[in-house]
């Protein structure tokens, strides 16, 4: 698999520092599961965080804090100690990597997809982020999504199949960041339905009157 569209450094930095909200982080973390190169960049950023922790001016903690922690260690049994979970033994690769599969509740073929019309389906993904919408979209192979622009930021992470627009072709693991400046008409590429995770903080702005009319019905 060749990933050619990666999150920007500033998005990775917000994820590494912990400033990025949960829904956006879901897209970044799921990209990281598929992209060793970006994991390496995030590790470097965390190393910078570690060296900043070394150089911070320490704030004294009271003796009580240490005592409280040692008392809690005494009360813990070794069963409480986290041990790495054993990997599942079967050879099949899920379409939705973790952490996304956990948020969705099942892999892509086990979800209760909601019909959007024109052969497209969606599956809302609940997160704790207010004002940010996360959803899985399934666009039938070879079909277009109506031309639209964005009222805010949209992150789209491809998990299966591929889509393309004027900015390029996006396959499994590729992440597209779109903002107010991008108006595009993505097409699912032929061969396989395109399943992607889309995170938005404002409704899409469809160019055609017909698409705008059905928009409230579809909730997109």
């Amino acid at each position: 698999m060749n990933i050619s569209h990666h999150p920007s450094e500033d998005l990775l930095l917000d994820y590494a520092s912990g400033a990025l909200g949960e829904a956006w982080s879901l897209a970044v973390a799921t990209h990281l599961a598929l992209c060793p190169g970006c994991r390496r960049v995030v590790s470097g950023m965390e190393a910078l965080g570690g060296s900043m922790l070394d150089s911070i001016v320490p704030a004294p903690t009271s003796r009580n804090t240490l005592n409280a922690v040692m008392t809690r260690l005494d009360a813990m049994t070794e069963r409480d100690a986290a041990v790495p979970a054993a990997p599942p033994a079967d050879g099949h690769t899920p379409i939705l990597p973790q952490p996304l599969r956990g948020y969705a509740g099942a892999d892509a073929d086990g979800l209760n997809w909601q019909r959007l019309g024109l052969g497209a389906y969606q599956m809302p993904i609940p997160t704790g982020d207010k004002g940010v919408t996360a959803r899985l979209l399934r666009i039938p192979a070879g079909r277009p999504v109506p031309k639209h622009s964005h009222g805010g930021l949209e992150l789209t992470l491809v998990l299966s199949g591929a889509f393309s627009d004027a900015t390029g072709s996006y396959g499994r693991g590729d992440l597209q960041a779109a903002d107010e400046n991008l108006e595009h008409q993505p097409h699912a590429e032929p061969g396989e339905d395109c399943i992607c995770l889309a995170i938005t903080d404002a409704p899409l702005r469809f160019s055609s009157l017909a698409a705008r009319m059905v928009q409230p019905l579809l909730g997109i």
Partner: protein
Amino acid sequence: MNDDDRQNMAGQLDRMLVAVADCRDRQAFKSLFEYFAPRVKAFGLRQGADPGMADEVVQETMINVWRKAKQFEATKASASTWIFAIARNMRIDMLRKANRPEPDMDDPAMVPDPEPQAHEIIHRKQEARRIEEAFASLPAEQQEVLRLAFFEDKAHSRVAAELGIPLGTVKSRIRLAFRHLRGVVGEEQ
């Protein structure tokens, strides 16, 4: 502290964490606590926690250091980096009451890291030090953006507002800073 002292200190912290993982060594844990608890507390205070809340972040962070010590891999990260990540996650959990989505190394869908070559393992150990040196060599304005991003839980859009500079400038400074860091980390490979 000069560079050698810092290297010795980093090595000691790594060994103490391994002793906690392998032998459940309580003395080593107390030494880790002495070093890290005041730093994690300062980190929490910088991010707007009150002292009581900052103490709770310290407690939960150190409990998790004990619980998860076996997951620490000294070839991949320093103890400081590993504990920074735990403290960051505790802060998100406790101060922001939010989840932090993270990849799961045991997931069958995870695309694994390429097998590291022997020389790369050594490089990874040096990586943190080189990143630190690279950070110190950045222009002051880039250092400031990164420090605000890490210590004060500020998304870069808020860093921009704080410094009174356009968001695009902050983004380009971050990009420049990491292009520089990437270059330093990537050299000799």
